[in-house]
């Protein structure tokens, strides 16, 4: 069975806030087709302060779905609605000390139920902006929708291309057949044919499949040159990030650490950690030294500590 953290088990065996809140004034009902999980979240919101006084859940689903629902109600109680809207699925997963990649969608379902409940309270219509696909690469938790979008946006043609852009397939190789099936499907939609026998040719790579080539650093750089180089690498990666609805901006470089502002879909999405790892990898390749990439939000904490 799954390797669940103790916190997941604790919330599953002793769920908090199970059942519907009696005089609820906000309800969110969402489901995830994968796993067939479904969740109804009910809230009692103070009309004056918009503080969530009570939260209750009813869940049809597996252990991690129940645990995600339970921990969500604990997180949001006492928050204002605006604060609650900032809760990400990663927050839910973190609070549970992590979820297996196949189960991350349980935390997404929690966040969606919360958004749906708040929209319901405010008399708005909630629309799901998140499309979930079958999990293809289990090593790096990449789903089919993500791969399809990347293949479309970046004219990818081979499994190797897909691995370069998404990391999918870069681990155990078990999903290579599935990735080929996606390539075949998307290329057919574009009126092209997938040819499994071609490997990405070096010139193709430069044209389409890998971010623009940047000369690797060979000689020692001044601090300014170094920052410029880092900037250059980041710039070259931005088209790929933007294709996925996100963006990244270099904020500061201190020693070996580059602080990067992640915005758009990258921010708080479950892929953020992976994206950062990708940027870091690329930076190290070009710079030829160890570079740590850290979200800029972490820097504030750091600076505060130094000042205090």
């Amino acid at each position: 069975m799954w390797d669940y953290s103790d916190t997941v088990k604790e919330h599953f065996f002793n769920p908090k806030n199970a059942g519907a809140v009696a005089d609820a004034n906000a309800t969110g009902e969402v489901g995830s087709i994968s796993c067939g999980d479904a969740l109804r979240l009910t809230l009692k919101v103070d009309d004056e302060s918009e503080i969530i006084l009570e939260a209750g859940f009813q869940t049809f689903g597996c252990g991690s779905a129940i645990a995600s629902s339970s921990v969500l109600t604990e997180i949001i109680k006492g928050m204002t609605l605006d604060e609650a809207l900032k809760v990400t699925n990663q927050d839910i997963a973190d609070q549970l000390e992590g979820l297996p990649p196949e189960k991350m969608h349980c935390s997404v379902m929690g966040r969606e139920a919360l958004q749906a409940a708040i929209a319901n309270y405010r008399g708005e219509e909630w629309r799901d902006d998140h499309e979930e696909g079958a999990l293809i690469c289990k090593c790096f938790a990449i789903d089919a929708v993500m791969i399809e979008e990347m293949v479309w946006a970046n004219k990818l043609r081979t499994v190797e291309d897909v691995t370069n852009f998404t990391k999918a397939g870069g681990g155990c190789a078990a999903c290579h057949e599935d990735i080929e099936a996606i390539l075949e499907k998307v290329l057919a939609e574009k009126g092209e044919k997938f040819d499994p026998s071609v490997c990405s040719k070096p010139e193709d790579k430069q044209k389409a499949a890998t971010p623009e080539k940047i000369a690797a650093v060979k000689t020692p750089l001044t601090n300014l040159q170094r920052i410029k180089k880092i900037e250059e690498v980041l710039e070259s990666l931005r088209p790929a990030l933007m294709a996925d609805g996100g963006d990244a901006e270099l904020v500061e470089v201190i020693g070996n650490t580059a602080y990067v502002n992640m915005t758009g879909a990258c921010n708080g999405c479950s892929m953020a950690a992976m994206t950062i790892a990708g940027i870091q990898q690329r930076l190290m390749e070009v710079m030829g030294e160890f570079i740590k990439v850290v979200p800029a939000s972490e820097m504030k904490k750091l600076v505060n500590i130094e000042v205090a």
Partner: protein
Amino acid sequence: MSDIYLDNNATTKVDRAVVDAMMPYFLEQYGNPSSIHKFADGVARGLKQARQQVQALIGCEHDSEIIFTSCGTESNTTAILSAIKCQPNRKEIITTMVEHPAILGVCDQLEKDGYTIHRLPVDKCGRLNLESYKKMLSENVALVTVMWANNETGTLFPVIEMAELANAAGVMFHTDAVQAVGKIPMMLADTKIDMLSLSGHKLHSPKGIGVLYLRRGVRYRPLLRGGHQERGRRAGTENTASIVGLGKACELALQHIEFENTKVKAMRDRLERGIIDSVPHSFVTGDLNNRLPNTTDIAFEYIEGESILMLLNKAGIAASSGSACTSGSLEPSHVMRAMDIPYTAAHGTIRFSFSRYNSMSEVDEVLKVMPGIAATLRKLSPYWSGDAPVANPEQAFAPTYS
């Protein structure tokens, strides 16, 4: 109360007598059976005896019809690929929608290579329609492969009759009998079955040993080539200890076949009745009149299988589920879908599978906790209210699906 193992269709405990029979082949008679010295003296004899023990259990005519393989999956793959290689002009395969992935996976792959795969559907009780099967048989069909017993529901397919129909139409017939061998009596010599797969770990011998039965005279192409082992039909140095263990396990299974169909069946029946009587909105899936004696698959409506398993596990009870969540796939089991079991029930199916090591007192233990587990989870379920499902569950709770 020690832990209760009711997951014998997944795998079984190795019988102590089987372990004892194997030990000398690790520590004393560890020579290669092909060698000519005293470390190998007894090995060939051990293999011969094992072959005869398997022969006795499945009732085939010759012990040379037994080919030892590494597992049920290998036997299945060998059978299918052999049939198509021997008959290159036949480009169709008949199978069912509810086969084990070890069959379906190979067929899916062949489909990509241009083969036509006919997957027979089943009705709500998991039964096949033999009339439509008959119509599919033709000289374009390379192989019919139909499981003897379903691993999830225990439902038995009429493979003896189906093999006769295939034979009359001149079509080769294979059955995946991994779940059936050792649980129901069989006499292959009296059938028209051409090939049969079995797997040791389902009948109290170790994992990683299997058999492909190949009826004498049936055309064959090996999967693994090289050495002369198994008369060149399956190259690779014999897994001697496991083969001897499988032989012993077959002997024991034959001795216990009546016990399986009386005592083990009685335990299964009592558990099943007890659960259906004490847990509202639960029902048994599959063909109740035509089943393995050791298996029951029960759907608990409005709750989810993995959650049930986690609570059972906490109570020291091991079983399995056809729910999507336990497998990491996106859909509930293909067997439940093929039987058209509604989603709210298909996600909550639990399979209890017995062996001769279980006891009635264990059944009583499960019956003590099962109603509470269902009630606990239903309290959390949006489809449930008080002690009954909400009115019109599908409409009362209609979440936005992403």
